[in-house]
């Protein structure tokens, strides 16, 4: 699961920053933003936002299976 800030909605209150243990959330010029490499997906920023300006992105990368019947010798 990853989290992304909807910049048009963000009001720069900094609740998300105040909670972030991994220092992944920062305040930019017009919006907060999340450094995905630092994010530990704890979800606290998503829960705390007073106007729900953070969205949850479910990773939908398809999982490939190897060694199916068709691939067997």
């Amino acid at each position, binding site marked *: 699961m990853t989290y992304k800030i909807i910049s048009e909605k963000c*009001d720069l*209150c*900094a*609740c998300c*920053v*105040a*909670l*972030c*243990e991994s*220092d992944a959330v*920062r*305040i930019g*010029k017009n919006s907060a933003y999340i450094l995905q490499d630092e994010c530990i997906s704890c979800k*606290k920023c998503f*829960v*705390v*936002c*007073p*106007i*729900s300006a953070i969205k949850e992105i479910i990773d939908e990368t398809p999982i490939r299976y190897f060694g199916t019947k068709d691939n067997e010798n």
Partner: protein
Amino acid sequence: MKIKNFYDIVVVGSGPAGGMTAMTASRKGASVLILERDREVGIPVRCAEGISLTSLIKFFEPDKKWISKYIEGAKLYAPNGEAVLMPSSAIGKGVILKREIFDAHICNIAVENGAEIITNADVFDLIKKNGKICGVKFRHFNKEKIVRTNLVIGADGPESRIGRLAGLKTFSQISDIEPSAQYVLTNLKIEHKFSHFYFGKKIAPGGYAWIFPKGENIANVGIGVRADKCNGKNAKEFLDEFVSRNLPNAKMISFITGCVPTGMTLKKITADNIMLVGDAARQVNPVSGGGLSNVLLAGKIAGNVAADAVKMNDFSNKFLKKYHKIWMKEKGNQQKLLHKLKEIFFDFSDEKLNDLTTHLNQIPSEKLTQFQLLKTAIREKPSLVKELIRYYL
């Protein structure tokens, strides 16, 4: 606008905490630079703007230029709508400020005493030499600039970026942050002599809603909640429900969100060459979420110690820790008790709050003091006594 290469003290943030620190330190002869990220001091106003008159006059002579309204008491509303009035004769008068002018007033005094301010200055890094903080880097109209200093004071709000850059642990638990939302509303028919506070798990879980009159028919109407008790609803949704239920004819003037730290002061608010003050240090009253009187005091203490550090040329943590010690003695230890009380009080069921209010209404209002409130709360939750004993011992 030209700035010097070096200042004794650089204060990051021009809110009441930063402004008060700068004002105090500059009055004692230190050279001070205030760096403010926004384009103007005092804006945006992320605050309900209420402060007790007793607290205010410890620091400033009241001036109608930055006062919206004097308040004659507080009305506390239980979940069932029953209200108890705590008049000013019992709890003292209150004041609703015009924060945009008040903050500028404090900074003006700092400037009159030699401090300088730059707005549109976004501090993004600390300068370190041999591991020691010796300046800050900031962006000013897209140009990167540096300024050197012996002491950086982080008054940059709950974000507390300066603290993090300095390696201090500044993040809060979700139970110690109240996400808040506030409208300025007009076209109101309210008792504008009083501040109004509304409690209840369906109204404001883990917090309360407020109506702070700024005039006869205009008010700050806001809410603070505990996000982990909200079952997926956000603060604005609770506020909108509150407004449509209680103030259906209100007209909106503005809307803003905020972050109210309701935990205890951070374990470390100083390090070599650095101090944190205000929301950045988590110096807010945990029960009321009120920060103004606390951060003005914290700013005064910080400013005094900072100026002394300049005089002694000693910016070590060993010296600067004095600020933390004095703060804890004046308010920080009381804050610990209030933090515990917060946990207990906001855990009361709606039924208990209704009972509490009914009981308080049996006491004549002129005799209703904070002590009576506490006595009644103890009746409902005797374990409160343990916490009080722990505090006073």
